[in-house]
């Protein structure tokens, strides 16, 4: 067998207990050294609605949650009705026949029904069907019962021996039943002998913040960014981070700015709506030259939009956030481990260049889960706090201290409040080198220009520090798929399939968005391959940005704005449609209805 590749879909209503089996499976996979990609499609609802969790695992790196389901666990009739038609030959559907009736399945789809009444007579509660389904699934994929035994022991440890025994009995019944009635999959779940870790993107961002030395974190809860707050709050005491939930996002960013000015590495996270409220203050951080990091986990907008659905629709918002021109860094991590690595990197840049930094994530990235080699999680990252008087005892340059001294780099040493001898006022009004407002008495065009240019000069310094994007894949290609941020994995998987179909494609995935390596990108995109831009929004925000920075108009566009992320075949189909000349803008249809 060349590659083990298994996708499990678990669907049901909110409140039916999908997270727990999802968590158990994810842990089971990474403990065997298998790679993992998981995505949960859900609604903004506490109970009811329809949730569909996809877990894909393989002995080779998994680039996306894919577009096939090998095992469907239907916890209610709704899931059965929505997904059975998508099941293909060789797959299996697990369901409680007491309550759920299958419809017409394609030939070769194994309908694995069990009866909760029969297998667990006398056990109350709906969750028992999950235990039976999970044990039957493990039997199907060739996992020994002792693994399940261990999991149940851990899972129900707090509930006492009676509950453990009850669940074990149910699991055993399900496992044995599956053994006698269902046809197992031809290859058992492999064990590579290694152990991997897994986390979700929000956790990765929070841990990256911890590694960077964030000492102050505040937020207002907003899906899909709340996971960062939850991780931070849970680890606050252990890591010595002051974590505050505050009244609104305006307060969030202003508090972070206050803490950052006083000397902390300060971070916050929100989604597009909260970010809109923060806009004015981000500009103020640039004007006062205070380093602060804000994460925007994009969801489908505008306004309250679709709170639990993904989109890449905030690019223009973050680029235009706040009045006036100001230096800022905007970065979009391209995968979940990259979320972890990007945060310390960004903190070093914002500290050195004393400006705000924005991380653009999205629901797919932030709430998706991925395996990671623990060796990749290096907390011992370099920390560069830039020129700070009062932190390292450095003294001001010759003469009196001027907070906003005009320098070639645009960076002026900052002094931490509380340091004797360097008193100054930072201001959101335009000011002189010493912080005195230039709007007092005379506005002085010369001073305004000098100070504005000083701040904006930082952008050149930042550009020199960040690496230009590189082409991934074959140098000679028929098509270059251009993406930004979270679409990296799915684009690369689509490339593999295109190659199998005889279409050579490569990928330019842009991570650092502002400042932008326009010249390098122009060189890469004028090599002769057709360019197709893939993004999760309606208007082609990145396509317009690319055009504004390089003058390059793409040959085709693949756009998706239905709230769900791309699946590999959406891109494959789009590339073929565009290359054939049938379409210039391809909008795929999302087949799974959630």
């Amino acid at each position, binding site marked *: 067998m060349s590659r083990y590749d298994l996708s499990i879909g678990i669907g049901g209503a909110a409140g039916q207990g999908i997270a727990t089996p999802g968590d158990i499976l994810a842990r089971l996979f990474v403990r065997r050294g298998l790679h993992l990609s998981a995505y949960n499609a859900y609604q903004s609802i506490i109970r009811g609605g329809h949730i569909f969790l996809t877990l894909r695992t393989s002995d080779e790196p998994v680039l996306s949650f894919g577009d096939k389901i090998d095992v469907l666990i239907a916890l209610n009739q709704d899931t059965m009705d929505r997904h059975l038609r998508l099941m293909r030959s060789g797959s299996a559907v697990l369901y409680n026949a007491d309550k759920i009736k299958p419809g017409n399945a394609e030939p070769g789809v194994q309908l694995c029904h069990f009866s909760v009444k029969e297998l667990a007579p006398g056990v109350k509660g709906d969750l028992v069907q999950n235990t039976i389904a999970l044990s039957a699934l493990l039997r199907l994929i060739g996992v020994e019962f002792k693994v399940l035994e261990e999991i149940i022991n851990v899972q129900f440890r707090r509930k006492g021996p009676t509950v453990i025994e009850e669940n074990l009995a149910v699991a055993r019944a399900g496992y044995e039943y599956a053994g006698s009635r269902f046809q197992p999959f031809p290859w058992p779940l492999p064990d590579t002998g290694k152990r991997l870790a897994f986390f979700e993107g929000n956790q990765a961002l929070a841990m990256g913040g911890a590694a960077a030395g964030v000492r102050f974190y505040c937020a207002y809860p907003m899906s899909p960014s709340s996971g960062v707050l939850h991780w931070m709050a849970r680890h606050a005491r252990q890591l010595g981070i002051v974590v505050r939930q505050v009244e609104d996002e305006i307060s969030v960013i202003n508090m972070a700015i206050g803490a950052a000015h006083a000397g902390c590495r300060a971070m916050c996270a929100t989604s597009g709506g909260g970010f809109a409220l923060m806009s004015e203050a981000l500009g103020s951080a640039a004007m*006062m030259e205070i380093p602060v990091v804000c994460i925007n986990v994009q969801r489908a907008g505008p306004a309250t939009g679709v709170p639990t659905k993904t989109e890449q629709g905030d690019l223009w918002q973050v680029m235009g956030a706040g009045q006036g021109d100001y230096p800022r860094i905007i970065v979009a991590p391209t995968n979940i481990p990259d979320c972890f690595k990007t945060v310390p990197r960004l903190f070093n840049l914002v500290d050195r260049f004393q400006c705000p930094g924005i991380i653009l994530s999205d629901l797919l990235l932030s709430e998706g889960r991925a395996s990671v080699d623990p060796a990749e999680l290096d907390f011992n990252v370099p920390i560069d706090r830039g020129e700070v008087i009062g932190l390292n005892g450095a003294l001001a340059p010759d003469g009196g201290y001027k907070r906003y001294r005009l320098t070639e780099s645009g960076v002026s040493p900052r002094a931490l409040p509380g340091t004797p001898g360097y008193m100054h006022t930072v201001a959101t009004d335009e000011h002189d080198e010493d912080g005195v407002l230039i709007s007092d008495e005379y506005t002085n065009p010369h001073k305004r220009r000098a100070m504005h240019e000083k701040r904006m000069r930082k952008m050149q310094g930042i550009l020199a520090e960040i690496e230009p994007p590189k082409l991934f894949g074959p140098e000679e290609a028929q098509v270059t798929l251009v993406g930004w941020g979270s679409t990296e994995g799915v684009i690369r998987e689509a490339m593999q399939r295109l190659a199998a179909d005889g279409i050579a494609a490569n990928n330019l995935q842009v991570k650092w968005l502002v400042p932008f390596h326009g010249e390098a990108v122009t060189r890469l995109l004028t090599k002769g391959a057709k360019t197709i831009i893939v993004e999760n929004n309606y208007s082609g925000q990145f396509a317009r940005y690319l055009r504004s920075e390089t003058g390059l108009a793409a040959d085709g566009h693949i756009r998706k704005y239905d709230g769900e992320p791309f699946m590999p075949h959406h891109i494959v189909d789009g590339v073929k449609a565009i290359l054939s000349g049938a379409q210039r803008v391809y909008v795929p249809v999302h087949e799974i209805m959630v």
Partner: protein
Amino acid sequence: MSVSPTEGRREARPAGAGAAARTTVKDLKGRVEPDWCPGCGDFGVLSALKQAIVELGLQPHEVMVISGIGCSSNLPGFINTYGMHTLHGRALAVATGAQLANHELKIVVTGGDGDGYGIGGNHFLHTMRRNVDLTYIVMNNQIYGLTTGQVSPTSVKGMKTKSTPEGSIENPINPIPLAIAAGATYVARGYTGQVKHLVELIKGGIRHRGFALIDAFSPCVTFNHDNTHDFFKQRTVKLEDRGHDPTNFAAAMEQGYRWGDEIPIGLFWKREDIPSLDELEPVLAEGGPLARRPLGVPPDVARSLIRDLM
């Protein structure tokens, strides 16, 4: 570069700073002269704040003055301490972050009634309920001055301004009972025509561990022709002269609602049994100010964080 913060701090201190000379009012003179209109009440707050810092024996670098936007919010530029002149209405949020980041700083927030009770109203409410350890001086002139005379949240009902030519039909905010109800632990009102009295109120506020509000009548001589110096001179009475007990909640609320021929000034309400936010924050309990702690995650902690993911 993770440097031991306390060491850095000591090195940065100029030689002999341990026995720093007592701060004088002259030491606190800012880089520029105030640009307020002649006769503006805000001069009284500036001079009272300087005097309070001097009398409390604080060094200029130990104080940070944070403001929003408006005439009164220009104050940080007129005093030689650390200062932040932030956005309209946002000073208390910024100040909370700064206070938690370095709880050794004495944070004074200055601003106007529009800034604090209008655009910043939500932050005002929440900063009080959190009992953040800072002193908030609101220069209350009952009008928007810098935007050339429109109603403010404290303008009295019926007041005619550029934006209310028929007279304001809205009820004004009464910051004193509002602050008491919201959880401020030191609530006072001063009048900028009574600077000595104001100095005492500010000193009390800075000394107080917790949120101190000092609402200071600060007449706008240019735009507010109703609530003038004469208006307040004739009406203000000191609570101290009336035997008011600032620990009596009912009396404090009752005095706070008085507005008429007699308008009380002084300390309405004070309680010292409630810890401030930084005192309650477990992370700050040991290790000095957050801002000066070394960065980085210790290897054993990092290992346990990674273990949790496996």
